[in-house]
């Protein structure tokens, strides 16, 4: 059976990594989107089996490690989507690919020492020259893999803006126009960072993959059109804007747009921040 490989970050993942980490969720009875999120919808529409190798919070290095690990299984009939995360994220600890920024590591009190080391790296060693160099090397390697193995052009969907735009020259790759972050941010009714963080997110984004379900559906159609009609995936048009507000989150008619599990989790976090600590410890370090 044809497979759809999706390799991305929280814009396509519904689980921490390793997948067994899901078991640490305090709410195992909630479905965080396995049946409705866009990778599953797209796989169904393409008639393909979904192989989702995404991990919340991961770095590009982790994404490429997944590609290398699965390159021998991917066939020319399969579909490959890389949801390209931020280039400056770094895969600090092998067993914890989801903690790729010093500030995320620092959220767990048990990892304060690790956070200091990561912060030193980000402040003194990581720099644009190296990040761009590595990004271009990754894309070149993927483009070459697609060429030598005869794959369909892998689709690069930008999760967020990249620090370099010159990699559009990779002939065996297709790139989205625009970013998923722009869709996500534009969904919020008031365009201020304070409102976004303090009124909408509040520790846990209540949406599936940072998008309302209606925009999942639109995204599925656009990516389907790319794979079937070679139409560039344009993320700058057609998506719903300004639909997410404090009011809509409490509107029963809007609840189908967001994740019940994430909503419940979010509300629990607001009540008891010690869950953060529990969750951080459970990340495995």
């Amino acid at each position: 059976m044809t497979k759809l490989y999706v390799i991305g970050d929280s814009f396509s993942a519904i689980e921490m990594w390793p997948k067994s980490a899901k078991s640490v969720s305090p709410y195992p009875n909630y479905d965080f989107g396995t049946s409705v999120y866009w990778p599953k919808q797209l796989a169904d529409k393409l008639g393909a089996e979904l192989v989702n190798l995404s991990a919340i919070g991961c770095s590009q290095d982790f994404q490429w490690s997944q590609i290398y690990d699965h390159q021998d299984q991917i066939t020319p009939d399969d579909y490959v989507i890389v949801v390209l995360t931020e280039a400056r994220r770094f895969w600090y600890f092998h067993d914890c690919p989801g903690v790729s920024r010093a500030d995320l590591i620092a959220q767990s009190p048990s990892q304060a020492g690790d956070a200091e080391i990561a912060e030193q790296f980000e402040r003194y060693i990581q720099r644009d020259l190296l990040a761009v160099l590595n990004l271009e090397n990754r894309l070149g390697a993927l483009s070459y893999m697609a060429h030598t193995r005869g794959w369909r052009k892998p689709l690069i969907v930008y999760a967020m803006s990249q620090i370099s735009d010159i990699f559009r020259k990779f002939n065996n790759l297709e790139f989205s126009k625009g970013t998923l972050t722009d869709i996500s941010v534009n969904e919020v009714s008031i365009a201020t960072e304070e409102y976004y963080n303090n009124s909408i997110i509040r520790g846990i984004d209540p949406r599936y993959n940072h998008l309302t379900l209606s925009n999942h559906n639109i995204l599925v159609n656009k990516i389907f059109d790319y794979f079937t009609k070679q139409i560039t995936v344009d993320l700058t048009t057609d998506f719903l804007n300004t639909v997410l507000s404090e009011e809509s989150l409490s509107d029963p008619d809007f609840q189908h747009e967001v994740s019940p599990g994430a909503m419940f989790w979010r509300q629990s976090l607001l009540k008891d921040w010690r869950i953060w600590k529990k969750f951080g410890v459970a990340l495995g370090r």
Partner: protein
Amino acid sequence: MADKKLYIVGDSFSSELWESSSDISNNTWHRLLGKKLEAEVVNKSLIGSSQDYAWTHLHLFQSHITPDDYVIVCLTHPARFWFFQEYPSLSKIDQIWTYEDINGVDPLSIAARNFIKYIQRKDLDTLWLKNRLGWLANSAYSYGWRKPLIIHTMQPDDIDESQYPDLSFSKGYMYDHISLPEIPENEDYEKCIEPFDSRYNHLCLSNHAILADKIYNSLTTNITLDLTTNDFKKNIFTKEAIGNPEFQQAELSLPMSEKIKGWVLPKKKSIIPAQFRFK
């Protein structure tokens, strides 16, 4: 000026020395090879540098390289890391000490030490190496270059070379199969190269000539560059030979030999000449 170019990136196995150009032998393998190929040599190799430094130059060269040109990568160890933007030669833990000799212990050197101790690991080094080779192979394929030649300077991590049909790889390693066998097994290796190696690119000049011929044949006839054969001279670099003026004249870097005679521990900043700094 030759209308084709020989681009070389790498570490001390391919770098020019830092003396003025008039002091540098024209008999180093890269210069001999440039003559044989009738190509202008563009050599951006740097002693002690990392693969990232080499690939930075390959990225800069990319739009200039033509299908008539030659590209050689002397592939250094993947664990080296370009910590200090201004000092690409200082890519190993012992070279962080050199940085600290120059600048004192500072937040940057502490960050580099901690990176090596707590973050760096073989699987990441190998991942980055795969990406680099993939990018280079993709460039060669996309731009129609001759196959770039990857010369292993030392044993690499496990890489499946068959994944890169648009690259050529040496069989064997410059260090293990040429440089090290020049020193007899009964000689104290460290004594032969202390305080530093007086050979050009860690090879006696006789072996530079042999290497240049072998690379020339590889590039022009598409045969594998085999460094494991018995063509190279062995057991010639001894403590006794190093003190012999005739041997020095024929095989070694005379400026380096002169430096060794009067060698003292470097004063601050004396160890990294301006040419070694990345602009």
